[in-house]
């Protein structure tokens, strides 16, 4: 979801830390059930841990205001929008983290839910809660939301989130140009989302999808009010005063591309556990300004980037903050030109692709170039869950064994490359081979990376690597779509918490087809895994299928060369407690946060 905005950056490296969500954390989340119980914290109010609440419960965060494109939660696609919606909207479940920093989808608008034995029917039992205009939030508001999200005329970015539901894929994949309004309405009504009564919502899935709860916790799938949308007309996207809210906060002020003020929603069902009276989100474009303001105590948290990473990590930037480092659902990788005849004509060889992958010293790269992030030997990063199961804890990274076998041995790697050439009937010497690598970026850190890859492959194989640095992503797309390359660097961030959020891109309808040099024909081979997965409700069994998929993508087929997993880094002032940093979801979950003296 919000990570998608990052994904657009093509290199996962750029701006990662700016928008990062969070995984592990040392912060102890406040238990929503305790708290002081008062509406306004009394001057001597105490927290369950015996800390004294500060008289003023206000916080300020840096937030990328220009990415707040719309107040329409169905239309949202950027991190900034998700940050706001997660605090003003109460969906069925809320993304937060447990004591260990693992992502939890906590009951929110839904008090509880039942899943049928076949894993196909979800029945949500809504609590009695209200919009800020006094209207009760009903199951129908979710039905309306899902239908609106999938409506092809709206072309919402995350319309594919209804794809799990019976009739959902049929709806969002309709061609808006040729379909009639009646067809679309019929498809919307045919989608298996039903309000059994005001507080019971039944959703039937086409295939078992244990990750459905992770999707339903996103703000795109939060409730909407059709009457409010209609009354607002064209202003619904841009004018917050036309909206009603049902989350912990309401929007009370918005200055376009600059700042947004949230104030506590007194009608929120759990208002007694919302301590912050006001939160200001403001765009501070210059990192040095952010740094100045964090030091002065004007910002509650900072995501250190660039030159600021080291001082903040090593505690040189003061002692009044907590440094938090954790996983982030992002992976950086190389892919190959598999759709057109690649420039060199060599990218058809699995052995050559594997050799290029095994030549990478992932530990050295992350250490030397970034001094952060995690070396990646698989396509699914650390911290991703498959149902209740932590995927990476249970499944060994697929490239580890074969990497160990070759162990960066230059002779063996060269031999592998030569074998690949021989299989293609290419008898040239390695020194006569030229590979073209396309990428964007002329910042110092990007140039270092470009140099690193060029140098690495040239010295390992004795070939020539042509680095074609394009001016911007539009120029890169032009080269890419014209097939004028061999190797392409890209990044992918999971939109929801499940290995399939990463692996699905290699299917015959996956996004790798446009985005990562892949083709529908190649994807068909991958579809056999998808078919098996669609018939499997058991998470332990699904884990095995995921492991096979990853093995296939990274080793058997070498569709992709993953090399690095992203991370998240942030610093929070010591007097700010109860914040959580969901792995997927808003950067800061501050609805239950509070300030101590």
């Amino acid at each position: 979801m919000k990570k998608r905005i990052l994904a657009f950056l093509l290199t996962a490296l750029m701006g990662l830390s700016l928008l990062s969500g969070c995984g592990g954390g040392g912060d102890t989340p406040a238990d929503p059930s305790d708290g002081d119980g008062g509406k306004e914290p009394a001057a001597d109010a105490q927290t369950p841990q015996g800390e004294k609440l500060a008289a003023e419960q206000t916080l300020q965060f840096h937030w990328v205001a220009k990415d707040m494109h719309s107040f329409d939660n169905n239309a949202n696609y950027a991190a900034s929008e998700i940050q706001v919606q997660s605090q003003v909207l109460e969906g069925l479940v809320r993304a937060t983290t447990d004591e260990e920093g693992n992502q939890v989808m906590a009951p929110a608008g839904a008090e509880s839910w039942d899943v049928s034995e076949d894993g196909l029917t979800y029945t949500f039992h809504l609590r009695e809660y209200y919009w800020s205009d006094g209207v009760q939030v009903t199951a129908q508001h979710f039905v309306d939301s899902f239908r609106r999200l999938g409506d092809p005329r709206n072309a919402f970015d995350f319309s594919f989130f209804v794809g799990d539901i019976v009739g959902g894929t049929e709806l969002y994949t309709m061609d808006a140009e040729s379909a009639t309004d009646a067809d679309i309405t019929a498809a919307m009504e045919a989608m298996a989302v039903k309000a059994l009564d005001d507080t019971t919502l039944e959703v039937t899935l086409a295939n078992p999808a244990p990750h459905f709860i992770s999707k339903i916790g996103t703000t795109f799938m939060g409730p909407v009010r059709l009457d409010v949308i209609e009354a607002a007309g064209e202003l619904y996207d841009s004018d917050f005063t036309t909206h009603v809210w049902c989350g912990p906060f309401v929007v009370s002020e918005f200055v376009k591309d600059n700042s947004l003020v949230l104030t506590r929603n007194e009608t929120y069902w759990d208002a007694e556990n919302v301590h912050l009276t006001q939160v200001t989100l403001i765009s501070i474009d210059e990192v040095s300004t952010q740094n100045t303001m964090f030091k002065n105590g004007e910002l509650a948290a900072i995501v250190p980037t660039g030159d600021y990473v080291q001082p903040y990590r090593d505690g040189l930037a003061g002692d009044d903050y907590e440094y938090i480092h954790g996983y982030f659902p992002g992976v950086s990788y190389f892919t190959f030109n598999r759709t057109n005849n690649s420039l060199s004509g060599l990218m058809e060889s699995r052995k050559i692709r594997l050799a290029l992958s095994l030549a990478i010293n992932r530990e050295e790269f992350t250490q030397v170039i970034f001094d952060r992030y995690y070396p990646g030997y698989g396509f699914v990063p650390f911290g991703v869950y498959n149902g209740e199961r932590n995927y990476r804890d249970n499944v060994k990274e697929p490239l580890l064994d074969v990497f160990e076998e070759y162990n960066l041995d230059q002779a063996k790697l060269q031999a592998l490359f030569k074998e690949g050439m021989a299989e293609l009937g290419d008898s040239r010497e390695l020194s006569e081979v030229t590979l073209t690598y396309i990428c964007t970026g002329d910042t110092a850190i990007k140039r270092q990376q470009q140099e690193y890859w060029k140098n690495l492959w040239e010295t390992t194989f004795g070939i020539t690597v042509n680095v074609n640095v394009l001016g911007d992503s539009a120029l890169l797309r032009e080269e890419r779509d014209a097939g004028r390359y061999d190797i392409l660097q890209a990044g992918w961030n999971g939109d929801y918490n499940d290995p399939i959020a990463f692996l699905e891109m290699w299917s015959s309808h996956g996004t790798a087809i446009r985005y990562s040099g892949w083709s529908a024909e190649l994807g068909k081979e991958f579809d056999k895994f998808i078919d098996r997965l669609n018939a499997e409700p058991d998470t332990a069994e699904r884990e095995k299928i995921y492991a096979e998929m990853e093995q296939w993508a990274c080793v058997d087929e070498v569709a992709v060369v993953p090399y690095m997993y992203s991370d998240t880094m942030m610093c929070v002032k010591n007097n700010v407690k109860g914040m959580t940093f969901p792995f997927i979801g808003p950067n800061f979950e501050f609805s239950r946060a509070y300030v101590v003296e």
Partner: protein
Amino acid sequence: MLKYTIRRFAEMVFTLFIIASATFFLLAAVPGDPLADRADKLPENIRQNMYHKYGLDKPVLERYVITMRGMLQGDFGESVRMPGYDIQRLLSETLAPSARLGLQTILLGVGAGLLLGVLAAMCKGTWLDHAIVFFSVLMISVPTLVFGLLLQKYVAGELGLFPIIGWPKGKELWLGGWSYTVLPTLSGCFSYIATYSRLLKTSMLDVINQDYVLAARAKGLSEGQVVRRHILRNSFIPIITVLPMSVAFALTGSFFIEKVYAIPGFGRYFIEAVQTRDLSIVLGQTVLMAAVYVLVVFLVDILYTLVDPRIRVGGKA
């Protein structure tokens, strides 16, 4: 004069039409469109529906006709990046902070610049002249961004004399909230001080050596009268050429200062709209700036005649 004005107006409309068309086709020729980055990783059907929704699936010429027809009715179209916004709404919400910042900057910068220019010219060759020239060169060489960040870090951050970021809003939009405006105004005015002090000094030195100044002195006018009536007035021609343009640009915002001090102004859109290929906003801005430019040139022509009676329009010498 009326005939001249009408002719200039017709020229202006034609110029704007050419500029708008050129902008449209240039933007169409550049790789990328407002949706490309966003849609690159979306499933194919959604991508197609999205292009259809914004009409970007239509041929370029058809889009050109639609755009031009809209522009004739004053409708530049809705922004793709910012749903609900067209150029008019964007201007109405963001121009005021930019305009106030611009006005303050121009008043301070040009005022101080002209004063220093007169001083430098009158004290030519003294230490004061050298100091003014030295600081002018320094001020014009250091980017606005650097001034902004330095003032922010030390004056606001370390000394805490002014707020680090922010801008007056609500009732204080035009008057009040001065403490917010001090550093942004200072950061922006340096380049004006430098430009105008050097411009006026050079121009004055030119005029000082003219025969009519010698004549004025010879007929016994006091030094003050010579400077005010003869030197300054004649030195103002180059200033009048440049000043209206400075004002026009200053009013529409400063990208860097607005960025550093988080001022919700119009300046950022000149860069962002082009980066995101947001056609309706780019067209609106281009036409706006072109109109302002053409108008300013016209005004300057009229102003010349007021300052210098030797210049006449309409061919009557």
